[in-house]
């Protein structure tokens, strides 16, 4: 991604400046959280917004002490919901996308179109009936109640299908068949390795989607030990109205919660195929 190595031409001024303005705009609220997370609760709303102070570690300590360290539990829960959920989702999408791309069978386009229409259904429409149904089988207020609905992702299947169509040549599949491999074995040992970058992309997209989905855990979970970090911070924010000391915990918590996601992205960005999302990979 870097430009030509040896002779670096002088950067053009205007394009660089415009991009930097964009970057500053995007970093502005982040700079605010960073500054705010260093302020003690009492000065949070009284000192100039961007002036940092020295209370970051106090805030960290308070946050860790709150509710017996429940914040870290929320972080672990989030990692579980988003990480495991996205991994399962990527696996399922991979298998389904491969099937839709590489097999010709009756009902293929019907199934695909119905799955795709699922993208259009707002989460709020689904959350209540999902709750009522899971409650019938006693699964509400469990990890499953957040994990299970997150596994199937119409968008993920759609992406995986495009990727499989482009990345897995028919000839390779045919050759494996001629060798006598079973259909599942072909998927697992031949197609799947070719689809890894696409799967990582689906994983990341789903990871963000689950991480962002506030309503589902909000409705499903009653026990704060099972909360993901977004829901936990929301309850803190809500109670901040009467206990403003919690605001500084919310802010510190928000900052810390952003770090893992950014880290995951930076770590995986070499593998993730954004061109998939733009439709540049042609089916």
């Amino acid at each position, binding site marked *: 991604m870097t430009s030509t190595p040896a002779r670096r031409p002088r950067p053009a001024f205007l394009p660089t400046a415009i991009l930097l303005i964009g970057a500053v705009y995007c970093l502005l609220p982040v700079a605010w959280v960073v500054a705010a997370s260093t302020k003690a*609760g*009492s000065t*949070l*709303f*009284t000192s100039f917004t961007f002036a940092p102070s020295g209370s970051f570690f106090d805030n960290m300590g308070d946050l860790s002490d709150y*509710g017996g360290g429940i914040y870290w539990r929320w972080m672990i829960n989030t990692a579980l919901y988003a990480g495991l959920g996205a991994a399962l989702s990527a696996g399922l999408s991979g298998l389904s996308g491969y099937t839709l791309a590489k097999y010709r069978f009756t009902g293929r386009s019907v199934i695909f179109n119905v799955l795709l229409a699922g993208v259009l259904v707002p989460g709020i429409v689904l959350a*209540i009936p999902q*709750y*009522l*149904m*899971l*409650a*019938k*089988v*006693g*699964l*509400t*207020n469990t990890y*499953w109640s957040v994990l299970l609905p997150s596994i199937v992702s119409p968008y993920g299947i759609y992406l995986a299908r495009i990727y499989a169509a482009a990345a897995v040549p028919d000839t390779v599949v045919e050759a494996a068949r001629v060798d006598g491999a079973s259909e599942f074995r072909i998927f697992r040992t031949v197609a799947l390795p070719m689809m890894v970058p696409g799967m990582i992309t689906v994983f990341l997209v789903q990871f963000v989607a689950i991480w962002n989905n506030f309503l589902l855990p909000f*409705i499903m979970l*009653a*026990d*704060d030990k099972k909360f993901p970090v977004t829901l936990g911070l*929301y*309850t803190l924010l*809500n*109670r901040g*109205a*009467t*206990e*403003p*000391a919690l*605001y500084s915990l919310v802010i510190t918590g928000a900052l810390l919660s952003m770090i893992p996601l950014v880290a995951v992205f930076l770590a995986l960005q070499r593998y993730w195929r954004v061109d998939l999302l733009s439709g540049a990979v042609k089916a």
Partner: protein
Amino acid sequence: MTRSLGAKIVAIFLGASLVAACGSDSDDGDSGTTGGKVELSFWAWAPNIEKVIDKWNAANPDIHVTLSRQAGGGDIVTKLLTAHKAGNPPDLAQVEYQSLPTLVSNDVLADIAKETGDTKGKFADGVWQQVTLGTDAVYGIPQDAGPMMLYYRTDLFQQYGLTVPKTWEEFAQTARTVRTKAPKQYLTTFSAKDPGWFAGLAQQAGAAWWGVSGDSWKVSINDAATKKVADYWGGLVGEGAIDDQPMYTPEWNKALNDGTLLAWPSAIWGPGVLEGNAPDTKGKWAMAPLPQWTAGESKTGNWGGSSTGVTAKSKNQSAAVKFATWMNTDAAATELLIKEAAIYPAARDAQASPALAQPPAFFPAQTDFYATAKQIAEGAAGVTWGPNVNVTYQVYQDAFGKAITQKSAFGAAVDEMQAATVSDMQKNGFKVAS
């Protein structure tokens, strides 16, 4: 878990078709009696309430209470309704008084009249009325009360030569004086975000938003008393004598902390809020009775306050009532509630608790704080809440928000609340007397 999961998924399939058909009875609850030991689940939001629960659990090995912490009063109602529909509500829940009818009307709460015995005598009549809804049933044990009073900045009042207003007319005058003496400051603010606050102020003026006559409801949210209160505040906002920003925002915290706001008509729990929201103002506040509509009276309304309800689907109702009664009337328990959860107890004896002998830490100078408060509380009006307070409150926020931004009359906002409340009740088939 994993093994049974497959079975459960199948069950969802089978069950889902049934969900539609049967709305109520599902008995796969997880609470219950295991070997003589009763397990109770309890939803609440009061801070540190687990300390009270721990005390109970230590003393009662055969009735074990588990807390599930919730975000707040409004959220708890939502979740209780959903959990009830799904068939798995907790055994006990902390419920704000105004939410009781909504929950009762949805069959969420149990009538515990048989189990409560002589508990009634431990509460003031006005308080007890809120948990009976004016019927023979009992739907909860009162936990805390929120009689309203006026908090003001003694230092700033002195600086500007102000006296504590005894009537609302004096209050208006004081507000105008503040504007002339300190153009950047306001006496107080009118919040379109806090319907409970406005409801308390209206109660003080004698408003009775809901009432029961025979088998029909009477709704009079736009009665003369409420209109009077609305027009009064509307006038002050209109002429710019007071601020119109909502309460409970960081901006409002800042205004309290830096003295932009000089006074706050609030409730008994105010000191705790001020301590958190305006930490720099310690010792600068004092409390006085709310200004009166007629000089010489001593009336007030209630803002907030909650009770402990037992759910209709709980399998251990009598154990649950036992715990709820203990928590809200026992001397040791209420003392913990006062100290740890910063709750002003509803029970009469508890209001004389030694824990209340000292003024709140944030008001060190006002040594008679709780004695005064107890006196004020005597003048609190009784209330009957309706079955759709949630709708009324929502319309309050929208209608008053609009009235403030469009600078239109507050009286019209009250009419809007009345119309929306009645039409919602009628839509659902409640009998409403006109």
